[in-house]
């Protein structure tokens, strides 16, 4: 203990003697640690953003869309068939034990007019369950209820973007807007959701009761008046998503009278998969950045080794004298290791400060989300200590095993 304290004192004194040299040596570690901290902060910030986006779409969502359709041997893309129906949605919700909700929807686009303003936006025909599944809430006014669907009321719930573009700051509730020349009464405005991960404006939307949408705006498909574009389902939990998918697939095959050899005339996707892939790629990116940054930590370590070797050489006589008065191998080893670790830890701490500052600056200037956890900081401290020991060991060992006579004679 006494020797450790004395070693630390000696180390600080030696480092103070060569202030510029110590500072430059530390700079390598400072840059290394700072860049690791900053890249980890950017990487985990990106991951966090993706997770927020997943949450903004709704949780445990499964989407069912119609399968591809062949017409005279021409295979059209997925989603062109009209195989899904409102009845399918009702049965999915009723019969699949792992499915919590199933909401049918139809989609279209339309020019919306209010007063002198008009705006082209997406028009969705939905049921109240859709709002639950998407975790949409109404900021002003009210949402519509099942009865509005049943009686095909001409009411609309608007996203923020059409509100901004049509009403010029006026209160939209109770106003009448025209969609394809049909008047609709605005009953509610959705809370803002922001951009989706694909950069889509999730607020540029108008929700209508599905029945009204079909009859007045989007139009009924000739083949099947009950047809819908999409069924959005919510599994009871994240773990139940695969089971819910299988149940839904089996039920739909049965309802659509598909033989064992037939392909599905629908396809089922869940968003978790999509985002898992996105998250994984952002994690890989972050790890690569961190790997590049840790290379600079290694370079910093080599700087420490270099300076320690010079220091050992300069102090050969001192080492010889210490050996002559009784310093053992371990004493000399400890002394120089402490010096190397002091350099690298001091550099590491400064690096943390610089790294935190840099990531704050990045999030301010570039508008990226950054996040610094205690894990990243601990890791940085740990790594700088490891660098100190790792690159300090060889010079320290060299010092410890000097021949005392030769060391004492060294000029």
């Amino acid at each position, binding site marked *: 203990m*006494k020797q450790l304290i004395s070693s630390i004192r000696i180390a600080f004194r030696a480092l103070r003697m060569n202030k510029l040299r110590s500072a430059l040596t530390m700079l390598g570690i400072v840059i290394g640690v700072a860049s690791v901290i900053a890249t980890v902060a950017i990487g985990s910030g990106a991951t966090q953003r993706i997770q927020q986006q997943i949450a903004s779409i709704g949780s445990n969502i499964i989407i069912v869309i119609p399968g591809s359709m062949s017409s005279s041997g021409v295979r059209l893309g997925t989603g062109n068939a009209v195989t899904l129906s409102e009845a399918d949605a009702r049965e999915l919700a009723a019969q699949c034990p792992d499915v919590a909700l199933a909401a049918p929807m139809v989609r279209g686009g339309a020019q919306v007019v209010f007063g002198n303003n008009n705006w082209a936006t997406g028009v969705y025909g939905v049921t109240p369950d859709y709002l639950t599944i998407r975790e949409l809430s109404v900021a002003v006014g009210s949402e519509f209820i099942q009865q509005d669907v049943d009686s095909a009321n001409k009411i609309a719930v608007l996203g923020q973007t059409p509100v901004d573009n049509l009403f010029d700051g006026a209160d939209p509730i109770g106003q009448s807007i025209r969609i394809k020349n049909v008047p609709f009464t605005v009953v509610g405005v959705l809370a803002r959701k922001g951009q989706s991960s694909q950069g889509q404006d999730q607020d540029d939307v108008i929700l209508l009761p599905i029945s009204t949408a079909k009859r007045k705006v989007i139009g009924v498909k000739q083949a099947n008046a009950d047809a819908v574009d999409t069924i959005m389902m919510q599994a009871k939990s994240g773990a139940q998503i695969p089971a819910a998918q299988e149940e839904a697939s089996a039920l739909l095959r049965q309802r659509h009278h598909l033989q064992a050899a037939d392909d599905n005339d629908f396809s089922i996707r869940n968003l978790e998969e999509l985002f898992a892939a996105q998250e994984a790629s952002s994690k890989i990116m972050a790890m690569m950045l961190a790997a590049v940054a840790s290379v600079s930590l290694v370079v910093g370590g080599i700087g420490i080794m270099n300076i320690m070797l010079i220091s050992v050489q300069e102090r050969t006589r001192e080492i010889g*004298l210490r050996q002559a008065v*009784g*310093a053992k*191998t371990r004493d000399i080893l400890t002394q120089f290791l402490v010096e190397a670790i002091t350099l690298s830890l001091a550099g590491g701490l400064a690096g943390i400060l610089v790294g935190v500052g840099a990531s704050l600056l990045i999030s301010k200037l570039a508008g990226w989300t950054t996040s610094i956890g205690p894990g990243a900081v601990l890791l940085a401290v740990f790594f700088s200590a490891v660098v100190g020991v790792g690159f300090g060991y060889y010079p320290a060992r060299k010092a410890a095993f000097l021949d005392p006579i030769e060391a004492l004679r060294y000029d």
Partner: protein
Amino acid sequence: MPALIDVRDLHKTYLLGEIVVNALQGVTLTIDRGSFVAIMGESGSGKSTLLNLLGCLDRPTSGRYLLDGISVEAMNRDQLAEIRNRKIGFVFQNFNLLPRMDALENVELPLLYKGSETLDEDELGQLGLAAVGLTGQEHNLPAQLSGGQQQRVAIARALINKPEILLADEPTGALDSHNGAEIMTIFQTLNKAQGITIVMVTHSDEIAAYAGRIIRFRDGLIVGDARAPRAVRGMVVPVLSPLPAGASG
């Protein structure tokens, strides 16, 4: 009581580049506790090699070395370090003080490597400095001290762990005659008053005359071993302290 130092047929061979140097070619020697021995000889005669071996800084190629009854010739690095720490004090021609440490820290250095804790290290260090007449200079760096003062700090350092033997390699080689005489006075007092065994390598007959026994070396062998007659021995027996603190050279 066995001799403090008992060396039998000591050989030391080392390589200088590709040349084999036979530095010691069979030295047999005993030194009694409490004696003051000067070793003389030309450069390369093997006297410094012997001093290094006696100081456990090096191991012989062959032969035996009993230090205080303990066989040390086969000890490892760390065991030798411990022997040096406890039993031996070194005084060098060029003082070998650590330039960044003040006088007191230099004196206390061997305490750092002593296995056990020492209470009142500073008190012990200050006593040591006082004994060589350096009270008031505790916090001066070596560069702020004269050569004679630096050598006295080195002596205080050599004595802090109360060793049995003081080994000195040309202790006055870097000093003028006045300061050299002062160092020798300190040596004599240590030898007489405290019974510390001193082995000193020197070129100078004048300095060697302070010793009670003079051993001469040539080509790695002892060629002369003379004990000074009682009357001549210790021609100066001065009082060690207080030396004037400002005495310098």
